[in-house]
């Protein structure tokens, strides 16, 4: 099937095409789903290499269940978020808790220009936020990321975390409170110390 036609095909249809032997469907589906899955797994695990392993494992499960996929019953992206979430929890439980390395891993930015300073400040803010996210309980971290970073709705998150919508609201609210508490002592690292009091 030509690429320009595949670009308009739904995830469901691409998966069915893959199951039917289409040679290009898997690559199109991977390019469409993997970036967000990698970003999500990376934020859950705090490690890019581990995130790649998890996403590869999740996609492998997707390929294996493709012949039995029922189009219209669930969204492929929601299914993938759920599998990635569970695999990340498994990894976290299996591994010893690593010291947060987000600040150390922050990209080095050449200093000397206003742009470089701004980039460095933004990298610091992101590192501080990621460090605070890593300190959250697993379910709260997932709920906050899915709601406020991935931009999913509460019913979608409920389907991914396999809980009710009220539980999602509670997890998100508690997660944000904990994040705010963790970041309140680091206003200098966030670059907001000099902001006027509201």
């Amino acid at each position: 099937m030509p690429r320009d036609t595949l670009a308009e095909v739904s995830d469901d249809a691409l998966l069915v095409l893959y199951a039917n032997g289409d040679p290009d469907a898997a690559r199109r589906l991977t390019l469409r789903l993997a970036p967000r899955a990698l970003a999500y797994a990376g934020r859950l695990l705090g490690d890019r290499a581990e995130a790649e392993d998890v996403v590869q494992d999740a996609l492998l499960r997707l390929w294996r269940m493709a012949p039995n996929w029922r189009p219209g019953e669930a969204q492929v992206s929601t299914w993938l978020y759920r599998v990635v979430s569970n695999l990340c929890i498994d990894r976290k439980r299996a591994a010893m808790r690593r010291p947060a390395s987000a600040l150390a891993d922050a990209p080095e930015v050449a200093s000397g220009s206003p742009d470089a300073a701004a980039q460095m400040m933004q990298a610091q803010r992101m590192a501080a936020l990621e460090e605070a996210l890593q300190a959250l309980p697993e379910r709260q971290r997932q709920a906050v990321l899915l709601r406020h970073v991935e931009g999913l709705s509460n019913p979608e998150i409920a389907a991914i975390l396999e809980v009710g919508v009220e539980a999602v609201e509670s997890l998100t609210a508690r997660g944000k409170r904990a994040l705010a508490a963790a970041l309140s002592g680091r206003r200098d690292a966030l670059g907001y110390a000099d902001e006027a009091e509201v």
Partner: protein
Amino acid sequence: MNDRIDMQLNRLLAEMAEAPPPEPGEAFLARVMADAAREQPGAAARDVLPGLPRGARVLRPVPGRSAGWIGALAEVFGGRGALAGMMLATVAGLFLGVTQPALLTPLYSETPLDSLDLLSGSDNLWTEVAQ
């Protein structure tokens, strides 16, 4: 104070959401594509028949069907229903050939076809219509 922290947190989360997701690296894509090729239905047949194109469908035996010569013959004729029809026609032909039923000639030779009138009143009807 809390409102300000909430606002800053929301701004931070928005910054994180707006950051472009990482592009999958070539090595990662190669690993995923290798998995996909290996797991794609029909991959085992392609291993046995390397010349088979990746898009080709591989026919597999349907579970529950007999694999004997009757099953094979039925597949040739397009299924068991078609095979039954062919057998019925064969038996009917054999029956007609063996019993040699009487010819139909006596039935129509007694009444010549040129004198047969299927609509006996039609001449009168046409006459009335013409008037």
